[in-house]
């Protein structure tokens, strides 16, 4: 947590489950091996049906053909983002693809927890459903200190919910760093 997250936004709808984030057939790659790990970036969000991929128009691949990283640093979605399986490969795949933050109206709890405890990305909640307000390829800027997001393409600003009780773990960068900083482990 150090200032600003700035980049192009990829917009999704509601109930994006972890099978859509990283289809089960791809869960076999190592998350340790740097070469194998790249495949998670290539296949991130490849399970989203084409009409729902990159709203409002759809038909936009999250990671371009032949690439291992996405051009999108921020994801905006509607409610229940990350429902379904507990696979940590899901937030990991988004991070490997280059995502730094997600803004959704609500999250499924295991995905939220994995994102925070694993230090993969910051899961912001927004009262306003920004998936209806912003378009894929808009440029957003999130101020981590004030939890404010500005759409640099339209000029509009929105307030996100404060991170609350998990903010200490987010600041530390994951549960292991948090536990070490607080003397809970060596």
């Amino acid at each position, binding site marked *: 947590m150090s200032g600003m997250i700035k980049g192009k936004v990829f917009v999704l709808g509601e*109930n994006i*489950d972890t*099978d*859509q984030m990283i*289809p*089960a*057939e791809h*869960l*076999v*790659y*190592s*998350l*340790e091996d740097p070469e*194998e790990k790249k495949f998670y970036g290539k296949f991130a969000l490849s*399970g*989203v*049906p084409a009409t729902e991929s990159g709203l409002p128009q759809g038909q936009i691949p999250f990671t371009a053909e032949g690439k291992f990283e996405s051009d999108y640093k921020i994801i905006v979605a509607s*409610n*229940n983002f990350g*429902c*379904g*399986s*507990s*696979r*940590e*490969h899901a*937030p990991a795949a988004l991070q490997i693809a280059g995502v730094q933050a997600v803004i959704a109206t*609500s*999250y*499924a*709890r*295991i995905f939220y*927890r*994995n994102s925070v*405890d*694993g230090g993969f990305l910051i899961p912001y909640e927004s009262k306003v459903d920004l998936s209806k307000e912003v378009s894929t390829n808009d440029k957003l800027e999130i101020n981590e200190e004030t939890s404010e997001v500005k759409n640099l393409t339209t000029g509009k600003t929105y307030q996100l919910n404060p991170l609350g*009780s998990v903010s200490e773990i987010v600041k530390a960068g*994951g*549960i*292991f760093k948090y*536990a070490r900083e607080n003397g*809970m*482990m060596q």
Partner: protein
Amino acid sequence: MMTITEKILAKHAGKSKVEPGDNVWVDVDILMTHDVCGPPTIGIFKKQFGQNAKVWDKEKVVIIPDHYIFTKDKYANRNIDILREFAKEQDLPHYYDVGTERYKGVCHMALPEEGFTRPGEILFGTDSHTCTAGAFGEFATGIGNTDAAFILGTGKIWLRVPETMQFIFEDEIHPYVMAKDLILKIIGDIGVDGATYRAMNFAGDGVKALDMEGRMTLTNMVIEAGGKNGIIEPDEVTFKYLETRTDHAYEPVLNDFDAKYHSVRVYKSKDIEPMLAKPHSPDNKSTVFEMRNTQLTRAYIGSCTGGKISDFIAAARIIKDKPVKVDTFVVPATTEIAQGLDSVKIDGKSLKEIFLNAGAQIGEASCAACLGGPADTFGRLNNDEEICISTTNRNFPGRMGSKQAQVYLASPYTVAASAINGKITDPRDFF
């Protein structure tokens, strides 16, 4: 004035009382992992605690490969090797290796069979359907690799105490209705995020009348409503199941009579009829009757929620002596259930004979096509045009393979009746 969930979390946090919303650190009784999330969990464990680190308590670690077993995928096979090496290196007594007599199959059914699901305890697993074990009156929930690695090294993890939603089924259910119909009804009513961050407690005579397998069907699918855990008060049915499965001592915990609930929903069991979740979401509710005659290309009976011996007995009762009209895949959850297909008979015919005579195909114990998996997985929906009715628990786009394929979720009775007709069929037609 606490619920079972609150009492278990309080005890494991060393506190006399907790309230919903409290963050607590709890001691873990069992940590389970499998071939998909085990290798990355082991990777994080070694990175954080050191290459020579030992797990916190080898009696409390259970490793059950079950997801990608019968595949030629080289990465999937490599992942089993990682589990095997780790079990050897750590001298873990509870590892159920592929290709040996110890191999079990689907972890959520293997855990109770091997006596790891005990009232009053806390069980974590690197799989969202770990909530299944709540049927035994314990706190059980799914976690990710990082949390699992943390537990592996410390035996502890933090949790937020959830509020509890109470679901009561008055009276016993109709004979043609199964636990799957009850949980599909609930998920349809409250939505796929209707229980997010909360415990779901199931009670009433309709629940008490269910055997352990039926109860596990209820708790298995609480994650499909976003629930943190599902839970059922342990009773004689629970204790009897455990008698033959474990000698381990346990302390049953019950809801206090004045426990506080987030909400209470009361269902009249006799009002519940056979239910469906239509494509592409477990809360896309319909009665089977409303969707009758929808054409199908495939039927699938298997998984942690729909591949238990009672599920196959139910399906076989309907399928017996009738050929199936669509490709029908039968996948026992565990090797013990696979043996049951041979030994359990209806009118002198084994379940296996009944399914094979009807023209169904039987696969080997594993998760198989419930979650798609590698392209050579038994029963996987590889074609966009497939329309499948399945006893599994999830039907988001692409869950069983192709993201265009359509999946209807239903009870074993409904899937069996539909397989015979090649279209969605109300099981009452066969009662």
